[in-house]
């Protein structure tokens, strides 16, 4: 249970994350972020889709990174308070993740079970509060893995 000032901070920080990421998505499209640009210019529809997925998964992961960044700037919070905040955001983060299941290019991911590990990690994090730190690190590792997997797959498809 969050104490009064913590939930205020959690909501404000989460709103800041959402707003910033929305702005980033528009900016990346207008300024032709290299992954979006590659997707828009590739002649193969399969590769186009893969680039879009790659960008969106990165964009999605950046929500989590940005939240961690905000929390790192607030050293005044105790370990327990930070844990509560991570769990608060994890709840909303998993909501975004679940919405992806029915969404356009993300509905059929080129890398099977790409988001599954993330979903399970978040679920475990919310269910077992004690393992929050461990799961938080696991999530970071998964985010890095996404990047590597996409790069490898794009290289493979481009060389075909």
């Amino acid at each position: 249970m969050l104490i009064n000032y913590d939930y205020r901070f959690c909501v404000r920080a989460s709103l800041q994350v959402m707003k910033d990421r929305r702005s980033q998505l528009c900016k990346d499209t207008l300024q032709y972020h290299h992954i979006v640009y590659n997707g828009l210019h590739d002649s193969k529809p399969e590769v186009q889709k893969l680039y879009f997925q790659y960008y969106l998964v990165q964009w999605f992961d950046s929500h989590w990174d940005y939240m961690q960044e905000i929390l790192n700037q607030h050293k005044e919070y105790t370990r327990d308070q930070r844990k509560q905040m991570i769990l608060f955001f994890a709840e909303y983060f998993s909501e975004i993740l679940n919405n992806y299941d029915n969404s356009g290019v993300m509905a059929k991911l080129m890398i099977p079970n790409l988001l599954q590990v993330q979903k399970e990690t978040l679920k475990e994090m919310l269910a077992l509060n004690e393992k929050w730190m461990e799961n938080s690190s696991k999530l970071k590792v998964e985010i890095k893995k996404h990047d590597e997997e996409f790069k490898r797959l794009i290289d493979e498809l481009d060389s075909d």
Partner: protein
Amino acid sequence: MKHDCLSRDLIILLKRLSVLASLIDTPYFNGKEKLAELSELSRLSELKGLEELRCLEGLAKCTKEGEKRMGSDLFGGFTPVGKEYQDKKGEKLIAYEEHYMRLLRNYQPEIKEIQEMMVALRQERISFYQVTLPQIEQAIRNDNVLSLEAKETWIRELRSNMEQSFAISESLISHYVTKNLEEFERKLKEEMNKV
């Protein structure tokens, strides 16, 4: 001194009579016979008072008896409600209003913040649909190198992800409002328990 007491007793008796006369038509009063009895008593008291004006003690006694009877018999027609309870209830109501207003004053920055959050989100959404999205669509459509399918896929994705993000922000604000309301109600309850 005794004369003064008699006058005071008579004044009280007459005042009560006038109050009772005004109550006779109300549904709470069911003692028409009692009023008649009281009037008779009053009349007798007055007569007695006039006849035995010199005997002040006797008249005073008679008047006091009349007042006593009036108090016990006439007000028996009302549903008995503890005076102490009535006062307490009134005090509680005033205290409730006071605490409510005080809490509202204390929560003014929160209320303002919620309003600002909602306005900011609404404006951001309007700006996205009216300014940013047409700009993006225009920029992408102007690029003749791009395939039509790729253009449409990306615009659809952008729109859908933005909308999902707006929805999450809305639920975050809703969470904030709910938590504030819960806190407000809890504090009000705590204050009221102190009264």
